[in-house]
């Protein structure tokens, strides 16, 4: 199994290649430079394992949520590469990516609250059930909300992951009862995880055609955020 994975939905930019159990990754925190970095990164990981695009079985990409332009670059680059080589794709949620980074512990499921700072006073979040060596399972739906308006069915979570915990640690701790030592606010989605999660699901998932690879924004009321612009 050979997969290329890219993830540019947040301030981290990364590309990874999975080849028969091994993962090679390039990862850099570089806000607003994803456009310059992502193809060279993909080139480097492929060169390192001496694999060409035509030898790949597919492509995994971060589909969001995250910064709109970052998410679209991830999707558009994936569309282009996949279309050029007729590769099937699988989109991996940036929130699931965070949930999968919870430290491996013993038996049983961990309740993970993954949150990305969505700006404008809101977070993107998902409640994931994470068992060792398996794909995080989403409970309910991913949403965009203010931390104050957050209404959770569960009162006790085990882990908090993602940048949402930087800006809203206090209200989120109050609602999830997660202890400070079980919070990783610096965690960012990364392509090595995208690749691993895609490999685990590849046989059972419905794979996408290039044009079906589309962003997940969560935030859809975008009209009043910015002024309209005259046509150029």
């Amino acid at each position, binding site marked *: 199994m050979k997969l290329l994975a890219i993830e540019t939905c947040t301030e981290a930019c990364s590309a990874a290649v999975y080849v028969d159990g091994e993962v090679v990754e390039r990862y850099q925190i570089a806000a607003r430079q994803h456009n310059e970095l992502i193809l060279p990164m993909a080139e480097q990981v492929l060169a390192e394992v001496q694999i060409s695009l035509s030898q790949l079985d597919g492509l995994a990409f971060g589909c969001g949520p995250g910064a709109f332009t970052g998410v679209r670059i991830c999707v558009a680059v994936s569309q282009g590469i996949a279309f050029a080589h007729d590769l099937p794709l699988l989109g991996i949620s940036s929130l699931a990516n965070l949930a999968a980074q919870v430290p491996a512990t013993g038996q049983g499921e961990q309740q993970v609250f993954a949150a990305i700072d969505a700006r404008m006073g809101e977070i993107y979040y998902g409640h994931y059930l994470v068992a060792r060596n398996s794909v995080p399972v989403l409970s309910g739906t991913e949403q965009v909300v203010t931390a104050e308006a957050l209404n959770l069915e569960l009162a006790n979570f085990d882990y908090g992951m993602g940048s949402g915990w930087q800006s809203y640690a206090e209200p989120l701790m109050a609602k999830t009862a997660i202890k400070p030592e079980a919070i990783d606010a610096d965690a960012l989605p990364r392509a090595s995880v995208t690749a691993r999660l895609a490999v685990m699901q590849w046989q059972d998932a419905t794979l996408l055609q290039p044009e079906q690879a589309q962003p997940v924004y969560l935030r859809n009321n975008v009209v009043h955020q910015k002024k309209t612009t005259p*046509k150029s």
Partner: protein
Amino acid sequence: MKVLGIETSCDETGIAIVDQKDGLIAETLHSQVLTHAKYGGVVPELASRDHVQRILPLIRQCLNEADLRLNDIDTLAYTAGPGLVGALFVGAAVGRSLAWALSKPSVAVHHMEAHLLAPFIDQDHAPRFPFLCLLVSGGHTLLVEARGIADYHVLGQSLDDAVGEAFDKTAKQLGLGYPGGPLIERLSEQAQALGVQSDRPFPRSLMAKDSLDFSFSGLKTHTLLAYQRSAQDDTAKMAVASAFQAAVIDTLVEKCRRALQRTGLKTLVVAGGVSANQALRSRLSALQAEGIEVQLPALRLCTDNGAMIAFAGLQHALVGHYDTNAAISVRPRWPLAELSWR
């Protein structure tokens, strides 16, 4: 050489394939005008979202119409600017990634250069320099001396509103809707047919001096005041719209005439969305009686489209102006005068 062009700088997703010998082979286009009409202007985020949904189906359709496979394409060309940053990134990311994955070269195209070369697509399949170009669109009003590929000298430009912008704002003031150009044009035609006209002509700005620059903001204000002082009925709208358009066209034609005299150029090329205006087209065509060759793009090439990007991309490819690394770069603000090969 076959070039696939990708245009996503604003609210049109345009794809086309141009061949060095055969010219335009196929083109596909999706306009978002209905998406944005209810907001009275382009909403950048909605534009970007639409591009990323439309772009691959349009590329596939274009290849099918040309009966070509992706591998038959020699060069990928995409609009790198000027335009909306998020919208530009969609086309640039897909274009650069396709090129990278196929190991083919790509060309970053300047949107306004593509407009000014557009009239040559159907003509000779190659531009004939030098010429004077009047570029009139929603974002630009430029008089350009075009000396060669990537060699443009700006002779004059708007000091305030672009001409298309003035049309849109005036239409809004008259309660006509968006986009304003075609609506004002239709009212002017009706006014002419019915013999409706305003009491006195509207001002033509920057005409006294020996200037090649434009200004439309005073005219816009004059138009608003004239309308407010009128009965504000359908007849008044016709009269005001018609006087506004006449003032704009007089100004554009006069500046073209001056620029032609000053440079001694014998060819005038007109480009950009406003060049779809029939009254402007016929007035400029009349310059042919003064010994000027006037090149007007076909109406479908006046507004944004993929064909002009593919065509401009081909001209740059023929002189080796390719992207030199795998970075995906766009320039939302990119003055035409700075279009020099890096």
